[in-house]
């Protein structure tokens, strides 16, 4: 019986193929935490992918093929992700997306490369939408990995360029999570500050374990004792929310330059306490000059009662759709070649997938946490009454970094 069904299904599939690519659905495996500490972030991003896929299907971006996002829970563990990858392969899914945790990204990039080498004809393309360890597009770059987010060095370049203009900043404190990403942020901050503002003193530097600290008051009193006026941190999730809360409680009057203050949970924790003090550097802010993408954000808000901030999902689907259209195929090998050097219009302007290292090049923004005023800041986050005001827009060329990648392309 089972075999019969399978045969029938196979028959149906072949018929569909024979009738052309019109009704084809491309499945994309989403591999990110859907349980545990970072589940709220993962859920939000899964919804983001699904929502953009829905828009793309409605507007027929790909000229035929439809997108379907299938969520897989990797529990934020590299080990688990590799198991999930096998599942993805077994289900015949040829495209994967992942973003949370550079440790996971490094493991996946490596596993995908090996899989593709050993299974010609069954290649997988990996779109990394948020893991920003620079290594992924430098020493450890590979052909099947495409990064949609700006990497940590690019963000730090943008952030320090902006920060350097503020002459009141004298004493900087670096607080980061103790793993590859946090260490990369700390190192880049020191390097760039030394170049751009050698007069700025690094008055303290700490690395703390990821997602384990509940009470940041001791760190804050350390900052205070060191005379900190500005904190640079790559912290995300509760690590950032609790830090800002503790700073407010102790009356630490310092600026916070962050990467992830706009992600799930942080706005709620900041509330009024972060006003005028917290900034983030990223690739998009809904309160941009022309409010590009506000319709997407509002539609998302309506559907999921949550905020849309992972704009890389838009870039990702747009890139894939264009590649499908250009190659008239959904074959990952053809698509991967087509993606190299491709340019698409995303919500933050033109995004180019650099050929040499598969790093997306795009403009970056620095935004500040302020009260919604209905003019430049129309949209708030997590219903706090506060939103992000665009303070600086850095054109693509300013945020671009050289790469040491020597790309090995399949023949």
């Amino acid at each position, binding site marked *: 019986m089972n075999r019969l069904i399978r045969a029938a299904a196979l028959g149906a599939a072949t018929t569909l193929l024979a009738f052309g690519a019109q009704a084809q659905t491309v499945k994309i495996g989403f591999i990110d935490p859907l349980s545990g500490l970072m589940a*709220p972030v993962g859920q939000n991003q899964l919804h983001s992918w699904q929502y953009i896929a829905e828009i793309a299907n409605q507007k027929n971006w790909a000229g035929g093929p439809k997108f379907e996002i299938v969520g897989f829970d990797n529990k934020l563990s590299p080990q688990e992700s590799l198991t999930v990858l096998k599942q993805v392969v077994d289900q015949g899914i040829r495209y994967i997306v992942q973003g949370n945790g550079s440790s996971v990204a490094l493991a996946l990039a490596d596993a995908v490369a090996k899989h593709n080498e050993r299974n010609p004809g069954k290649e997988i393309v990996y779109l990394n939408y948020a893991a920003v360890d620079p290594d992924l597009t430098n020493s450890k770059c590979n052909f099947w990995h495409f990064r949609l987010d700006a990497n940590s060095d690019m963000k730090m370049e943008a952030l320090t360029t902006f920060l350097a203009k503020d002459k009141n900043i004298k004493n900087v404190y670096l607080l980061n999570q103790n793993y590859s990403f946090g260490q990369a942020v700390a190192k880049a901050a020191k390097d760039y500050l030394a170049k751009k503002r050698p007069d700025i003193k690094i008055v303290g530097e700490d690395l703390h374990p990821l997602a384990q600290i509940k009470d940041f008051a001791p760190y804050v009193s350390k900052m*205070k004792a060191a005379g900190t006026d500005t904190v640079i941190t790559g912290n995300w999730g509760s690590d950032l929310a609790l830090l800002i809360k503790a700073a407010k409680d102790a*009356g630490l009057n310092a600026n916070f330059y962050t990467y992830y203050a706009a992600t799930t949970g942080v706005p*709620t*924790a900041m509330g009024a306490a972060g006003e005028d003090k917290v900034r983030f550097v990223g690739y998009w802010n809904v309160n941009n000059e022309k409010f590009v993408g506000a319709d997407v954000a509002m539609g998302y808000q309506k559907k999921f009662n949550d905020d849309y901030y992972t704009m890389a999902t838009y870039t990702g689907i747009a890139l894939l759709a264009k590649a499908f259209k250009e190659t008239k195929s959904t074959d990952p090998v053809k698509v991967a070649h087509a993606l190299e050097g491709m340019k698409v219009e995303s919500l933050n302007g033109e995004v180019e997938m650099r050929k040499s290292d598969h790093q997306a090049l795009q403009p970056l923004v620095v935004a500040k946490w302020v009260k919604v005023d209905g003019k430049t800041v129309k949209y708030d986050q997590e219903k706090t009454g506060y939103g992000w005001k665009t303070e600086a827009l850095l054109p693509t060329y300013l945020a671009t970094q050289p790469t040491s990648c020597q790309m090995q392309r399949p023949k």
Partner: protein
Amino acid sequence: MEFFVISLLNGVSYGLLLFMLSSGLTLIFSMMGVLNFAHAAFYMVGAYVAYSVGLKIGFFPALFVAPVVVGLLGAAVERYGLRTVHRWGHVAELLFTFGLAYLIEETVKVIWGLAAVPYRVPAALDGHLFTLYSTSFPKLRGFMMLVALLMLLSVWLLLKRTRIGLVIQAALTHPHMAEALGHNVPRVFMLVFGGGCALAGLAGVIGGVAFITEPSMAASVGPIVFVVAVVGGMGSLAGAFLASLLIGVMQTFAIALDWSLAGMLGAIGISVNEATPLYSLWKLQISQVAPVLPYLLLVLMLIFRPKGLLGTRAD
């Protein structure tokens, strides 16, 4: 000096929160012998209930309502779950509470969702209690310390100075005798378990507002609660109190110390640099390992003094 005083205050107030969290666990363990893995889950329920109830009636009434709700929940768990499992011994009880912790967590996710809820500090506690040198001390922390001390006092009075406390102690050490004297021992157990859970709920009301109310808050405090109970001495309320303060202060001060083995060796003239094998280990600063210190203490305590600081039994 400013740094020292503020750090001490931070340490003590964090320690007191730890105490609120672990006192219920210690009580339940000392009286019933049940190692309640779901304890942190009750803490979380306390936070969520206080948030929901607080929206309607305000924070301060919720401060009383939430522990009662959690206590009733705990009592129900004892009556309809634990009591049945009890006859299969302690391992079964342990596994039962282990499963229960997961169940509670998932239920919380279903009811309140995966994201953090906006549990805000009430206006009366928002702001600064006093300013020391240039650092301000938040009212909420002061309130946290006050509640913890009041809790310690009332639990102690209840157990040592009231009739019901006497019955509880009797029922726990000599259950058959107490039963023969006409006391309802199963009900005493229910009371103790419910009471222990209510204490966790109370800690949740405060902890939830001081930190973040989200579904993983239970998992994040789960381990540290056990450290407090073990270091203080399984079953000793005073021990738990001491251990909480010790861990709170130790962790706070460790963060302030940028000492490393490399630095120490450097001071006596041995140079350690990136070429040295295991350099990443040598340069590790005390501030970096601060969050691990309580667990180190747990391991050392179990090796050298298994009964804990003030524990009475060594088994």
